[in-house]
């Protein structure tokens, strides 16, 4: 079992005068982080509510005050993690001007975030499918969250209007699929070196192979 994270601030034990919402928020945050760690480690099926409360250092009563069951807790943890990840990706994307550079920066941030926690990355993109239909729909929503980063390619591409309506979903699918291949092969440390392949997979849907290869050659050399 991973150790409980000591990095997070916790309210002092015993009697204290912190406002109730602050305590609850801290418990919820701890629980959600613990849930991602435990499920990444044990798998969704084998992980129990007891595992989650023990890792988070909260009582069962507190758990059930926050969530009706393990699934509700996992779905909230999943969403929260995706949300955090997307904030990083979006802010890297928005810091650039020209679309290919925006896409490159977004993908670079995505890879860096995923590489920093390989077990969590694998849960986010691969093992989530084993957590049931509701989790699978969250996975789909998470992949969809990437598509706005690619939609701008339609304005950038010379023939953008004539491209398939699903171009951004195709680009997102290629990116996620190539990352998943690496995670399944236990090569998370290799993720950052995937950048040029992912950028190519993104650009080709809009610009075609030759222009995509030129852009990638110029940007990542």
């Amino acid at each position, binding site marked *: 079992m991973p150790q409980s994270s000591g990095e997070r601030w916790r309210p002092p034990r015993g009697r204290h005068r912190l406002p109730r919402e602050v305590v609850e928020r801290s418990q919820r945050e701890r629980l959600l982080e613990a849930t991602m760690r435990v499920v990444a480690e044990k798998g969704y099926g084998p992980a129990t509510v007891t595992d989650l409360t023990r890792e988070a250092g909260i009582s069962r009563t507190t758990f059930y005050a926050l969530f009706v069951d393990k699934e509700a807790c996992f779905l909230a943890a999943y969403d929260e993690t995706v949300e955090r990840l997307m904030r990083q990706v979006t802010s890297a994307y928005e810091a650039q001007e020209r679309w290919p550079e925006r896409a490159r920066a977004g993908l670079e941030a995505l890879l860096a975030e995923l590489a920093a926690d390989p077990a969590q990355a694998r849960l986010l993109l*691969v093992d989530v*499918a084993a*957590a049931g239909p509701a989790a699978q729909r969250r996975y789909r929503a998470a992949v969809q969250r990437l598509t706005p980063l690619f939609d701008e390619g339609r304005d950038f591409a010379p023939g953008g209007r004539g491209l398939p309506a699903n171009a951004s*979903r195709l680009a997102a699918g290629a990116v*996620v699929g*190539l990352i998943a291949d690496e995670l399944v*092969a236990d090569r998370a440390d290799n993720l950052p070196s995937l950048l040029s392949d992912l950028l190519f*997979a993104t650009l080709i849907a809009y610009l075609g*192979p030759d222009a995509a290869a030129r852009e990638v050659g110029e940007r990542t050399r």
Partner: protein
Amino acid sequence: MPPLSSQQEAKSDLDRADLGGLINREQLPSGRADLEQPLVAHSQRERILNAMAAACAAKGFGATTIGDIVEGAGVSRATFYELFKDKEECLQASMELSLADAMGRIVEVYSPDKPWAAMVRDATRAFLELLASRPNFARMALIEAPAAGGRSLEMYASAKRVLQAVLDLGRNDPIEEQGIPASAGRGALAAAEQLIVGQILAGNSERLPELLPDIVYIVTIPYLGQDEALRQSREAEKLIHSGA
């Protein structure tokens, strides 16, 4: 979502006439015998496999119990255990049946004489129609089986390698010299896979055949370039609407 465990990006060594050989080497079922026989519940075994796929679609493989399966199939527990050791073995059998069908459809349209783009289009179309006609099996084969790991995941990865080999027939040497990464074909296949998985998860399996033009576009573009990929995609669009 799931893996392509062989990471080799070598140029395909698939001989055009030897798709059957490759399917065998990947130890995939190629049973053409299953082709003509739809998954109508003839036997107890088939009823169990149908019930398995239905339960998986409703609650996921992890939450599916033997009780769900035997109830759905209308058979006794004893009958289930005569045929299968456990839930995993039942999933594998269900996966085998689905893959035999899918490979059968692809072998059917595969011909050494057909232009590559037409072959890819026809194979994709046959595959999408098969998935649309059996939404529970589509969901089980593309989402639950790979997530379940073990032999089911191996079969899934093998099937992807076969599809990749078919796609790589379109690869010719010059494109590698133009700075196109070796992973381009794998990326294209992943894009198609995610589009299909997304459609299934959205509950729109019956509309999978409509994805044909977009899939044709993304899987041909690395090999044929954008203009030709768009042309192929429009052709595919016409084909769907003509119903031919």
